[in-house]
């Protein structure tokens, strides 16, 4: 089953990118009509911005994996073990961030909203960055991770957290370049990432809330 998945996933991505490019591309691509210079320039600028952001993601992912590889790995394992929980948590967390931000914006005239809004923004951005890097690790491990010890021992380069993260960035980055489908998949990855980051408390696997237990005499 996994072998089939590994074979069909790249084929599906290629097919989806071709179909999407034909459907969503400018009129000059495949459906008649001329591609103007303005269209081409806009497309090139868009691609350049995406590629630049991917380069930033790549450096951020390598740096964070070097600093806390174990935490990233724990989060990645959690995402693969309970994907639905992470996705649900991500959706609820994003909704909560938005509603809380509106409430904090409501409080701005009372001089309380600005610091709270700033703290929420920093927390949300850090959660997204950490979670997306955990998603990179999970995707890299799913696609290129070793399944057996023999496979692992026979590999010279394709092993280790750092390489898995880099492979994940490259795969998700390539998908991000597909029009329409790319941003949607990237957004879904962000939802998964935020959920995973919160579910594992940034890979520390500690409870968010202390449980109250009465002292037994």
């Amino acid at each position, binding site marked *: 089953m996994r072998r089939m998945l590994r074979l069909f996933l790249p084929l599906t991505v290629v097919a989806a990118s071709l179909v999407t490019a034909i459907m969503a591309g400018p009129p000059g691509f495949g459906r008649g009509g001329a591609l103007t210079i303005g269209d081409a*320039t806009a497309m*090139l*600028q868009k*691609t*350049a*911005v995406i*590629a*630049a*952001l*991917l*380069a930033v993601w*790549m*450096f951020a992912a*390598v740096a964070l994996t070097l600093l806390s*590889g*174990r935490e990233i*790995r*724990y989060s*990645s*394992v*959690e995402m*693969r*073990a*309970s994907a639905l*929980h992470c996705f*649900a*948590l991500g959706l*609820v*967390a994003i*909704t*909560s961030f938005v*509603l*809380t931000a*509106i*409430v904090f*914006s*409501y409080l701005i005239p009372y001089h309380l909203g600005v610091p709270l809004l700033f703290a929420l923004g920093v927390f949300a951005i850090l959660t997204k960055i950490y979670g997306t890097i955990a998603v990179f690790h999970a995707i890299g*491990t799913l696609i290129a991770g*070793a*399944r*057996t*010890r*023999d496979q*692992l021992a026979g590999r*010279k380069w*394709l*092993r*280790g*957290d*750092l*390489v898995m993260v*880099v492979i994940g960035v*490259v795969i998700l*980055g390539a998908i991000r370049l597909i029009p329409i489908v790319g941003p949607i998949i990237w957004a879904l990855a962000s939802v998964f990432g935020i959920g995973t980051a*919160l579910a*594992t408390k940034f890979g520390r*696997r500690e*409870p*968010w*809330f202390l449980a109250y237990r009465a002292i037994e005499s």
Partner: protein
Amino acid sequence: MTDQACEKYLEDPEANSAHLRTCAKCNAEAMALAEKADDAPPSIDLDALPLAPWEGSSHRAWPLVLGTAAVVAIVALALLDAAGMSPLHVVEGSLTSMEVLRTQLNRAATSLRSASLGAQVAFGVAFLLVNGLLIALLRRAPRGIDA
């Protein structure tokens, strides 16, 4: 041999080891126990166990990592150059999108302030519900390693 002697032996086998020479029943039990203790534990085939996530995780293939990062950076710079943009444009674009987000947030807060009391209460209830659900979901312990 009396049961009393057997009980005395069971209380302190080392001090009463002489009892084994006179009692066939205790001797047989002691022999059986010794045989069980000498049995080697069942061997574990480590290769048959599933691969743990941490195995080989500390390996760092620097040539592959640096090579890929360099290729991505070079492609990005080349595309920026071809599009006539500088990396500063990308940063400005990101800041602009943040500004758009802030404007939308302010607009939502202003509409909430000017909304009817019923709408404000409904928003408050939705806020409490979503955050309550978030807390409930956060209470679940992660299961990744034990899965």
